[in-house]
């Protein structure tokens, strides 16, 4: 796990020290295993099955800064303890995590950066 610093409601520095790959990020967002579109919908016309438990991802790069998006992915509960959005880069403070997932974050630091880079392209 890479260390990170929260300032205000953002993590301004990349977890990997480099910029993510937006194309990889899009592929990851629509992949079922990332869990994103189980709850969110977005500009994914080819995806028949999207959720409506959470905001549409369209325009997220216009609504939030890169650092704000990074914190919302890494640990949304930091901002709202009652949120149903999982903390995608967290291994502590969880209960009864299944053996296959124990000690691992939902997304790796590289994957977080890829998703952040993709969401930043969604300006409208």
């Amino acid at each position, binding site marked *: 796990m890479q260390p990170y610093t929260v300032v205000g409601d953002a993590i301004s520095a990349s977890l990997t020290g480099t910029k993510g790959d937006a194309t990889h990020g899009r592929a990851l967002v629509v992949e*079922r295993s990332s*869990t994103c*579109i*189980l*709850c969110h919908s977005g500009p994914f016309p080819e995806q*028949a*099955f*999207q*959720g*409506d*438990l959470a905001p549409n991802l369209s325009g997220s790069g216009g609504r939030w800064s890169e650092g704000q998006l990074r914190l919302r992915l890494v640990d949304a*509960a930091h901002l709202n303890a009652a949120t*149903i959005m*999982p*903390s995608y880069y967290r291994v502590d403070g*969880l*209960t*009864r*995590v*299944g*053996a*296959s*997932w124990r000690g*691992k974050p*939902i997304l790796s630091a590289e994957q977080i950066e890829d998703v952040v880079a993709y969401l930043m392209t969604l300006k409208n």
Partner: protein
Amino acid sequence: MRIALCIALLTAMAGAALATEISLDQRRSGYSFMSADTKAMQDEDTANPGMLFVLDGEALWKRKAGSADKACADCHSDARVSMKGVAAHYPAFEKTLGKPVDLEGRINLCRSNHQQASPFAYESRELLALTAYVAQQSRGVPIAAGDDPDLAPFVEKGHALFVQRQGQLNLACANCHDDNWDKKLAGSPITQGQPTGYPLYRLEWQALGSLQRRLRACITGIRAQAYDYGSPELVELELYLMTRARGMPVETPAVRP
């Protein structure tokens, strides 16, 4: 003064615990979220694949088993009479064990104690069939589980588990099934998780399955460690869910997508 404060606090806490519960007029069976085709499959006994298991269960009910060489029917006679309404009261408190048992557990206790036969394995065709046959005798009967005061601490444990966030996704049952039912998860409606029709035929499984199987699948879905079949936690969760579904009619054998 101190006692009055305690009572006030307890009342406030009980109010908070009940605040998210679904009121009787809002309770909806998983049936109401299904397509017309799937509803028709449940409604018509000749189209309902669960009925094949019920028929197997009926044969098992009459078959002698164990070193006692007794069939269920030798003690309980005609299930259509003796088992009517029984499943609506399960899980029930078992005094000799000091804890609740679900219908599958009750059938296996009967096998061990009265038939002197080995218990059926969880999710075995025999146990599902016999459970479905017994539960089908309560079809249409309002669920009335949890009346026994001995059950109260176990209902509370089940409720605590229902609202406990767990797994890598850090979600509680309540996050979806109390707070977000009727929204869509990956395009499919989230139901209230009312266990009205178990054992039921799930098209995804291409088989009849128990409520414990469904709970284990949901727990794995949030990437938590699933409790073992027959574990106290699963029975307590079943018990809480059945008390939460009070007043809703039993649908066994239900069909679900």
